[in-house]
């Protein structure tokens, strides 16, 4: 969870964009950087290779302003998508408050998505964090491409859900974003929870702020 600095009256929250290579994580941050009022954001830092592949991370601080006497800031990070940079991926997850998994909707990237999702669970577990109990959202990016897989297929592969063991949470929770769908529901006698998902075309900005808004609200709730 985030650090509250009562001396400087600051709350900093760390959001990490995770996912397969060339999926659009950096594009998400670049869109936010370009659209947020300059006074509300800091410098964007990219530690990238010469070919603009993320080597270590991208970093963008966004300032929410002063709320009830506290300056609230979101620190947005991306991790490198390529698996051989796993050491740096793992480092960036340290102290994470919320995770956005940016999936590449293209059919031929399904394997890469699954591999990155597995890798996310593994790296979180190695830090001792439980992804199912942390603010977590999935963004299905590149929805505009003709070879984009159907959402149902992506959901089945990447967001099949986890068993809800806490009796207090075992009740139907509708997905406000997708009428007729549920975040918590009963299946074959078991309570299953899924991460909320958002469709996006990060290059045009579609869905970028919907995702960011949702994850930041969930993170803020953990402060209460």
């Amino acid at each position, binding site marked *: 969870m985030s650090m509250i600095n009562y*001396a400087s009256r600051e709350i900093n929250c760390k959001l990490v964009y995770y996912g397969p290579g060339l999926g659009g994580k950096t594009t998400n941050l670049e869109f936010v950087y370009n659209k947020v009022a300059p006074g509300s954001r800091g410098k964007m830092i990219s530690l990238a290779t010469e070919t603009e592949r993320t080597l270590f991370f991208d970093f963008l601080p966004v300032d929410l302003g002063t709320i009830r006497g506290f300056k609230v800031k979101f620190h947005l990070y991306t991790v490198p998508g390529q698996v051989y940079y796993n050491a740096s991926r793992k480092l960036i997850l340290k102290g994470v408050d919320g995770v956005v998994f940016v999936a590449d909707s293209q059919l031929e990237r399904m394997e890469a998505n699954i591999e990155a999702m597995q890798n996310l669970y593994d790296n979180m577990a190695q830090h001792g964090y439980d992804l199912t109990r942390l603010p977590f959202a999935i963004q299905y990016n590149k929805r505009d491409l003709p070879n984009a897989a159907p959402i149902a297929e992506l959901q089945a592969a990447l967001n099949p859900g986890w068993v809800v063991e806490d009796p207090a949470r075992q009740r139907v929770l509708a997905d406000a974003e997708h009428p007729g769908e549920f975040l918590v529901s009963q299946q074959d006698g078991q309570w299953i929870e899924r991460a909320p998902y958002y469709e996006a075309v990060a290059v045009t900005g579609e869905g970028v702020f919907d995702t960011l808004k949702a994850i930041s609200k969930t993170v803020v709730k953990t402060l209460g």
Partner: protein
Amino acid sequence: MTSGASSWSFGEEDARRIDGILTGFLRESSARTALIVDRTGQLVATAGEPPAFDPTAFASLTAADFSANDQLARMLGEPEFGALFHQGERESMYLADIARRVILVVLFDNRTTLGLVKLRVRATVQDLTKVFTEMFGRTRTDAPRVESGFLGDAEDEIDKLFGA
């Protein structure tokens, strides 16, 4: 397994004690600025000359630098590199681990020497380790950490900033 990174808070009394230690260190070492950065990349405290750069970006890069070097140490069979030194033509920085949770960053120029900085850092690390170990060891209360009304206001600000 916890749900996420352990939370900790930082009070005014903590800030006062840390500032006292850092100010004393700067006086004895003739270094310019001292910063405390936590391992997740957040700036915790600064003392001395206010930095001319963006401290938020600086903190995130410092944590990444330290973490990357930690992994390098492990590859060499060392448990960690307790300290790092980056030398510039005029400005240099010295980084030291505190209680495996935060990093002391010292910025200095040719008004002092690496030897003196290193010498003074040693005692400062001990003092800061004591303070931070105490802070992290404090029992957590379940009381809300922000006042009621905060969440609603924060959600409104999020809608405003990121588009309703």
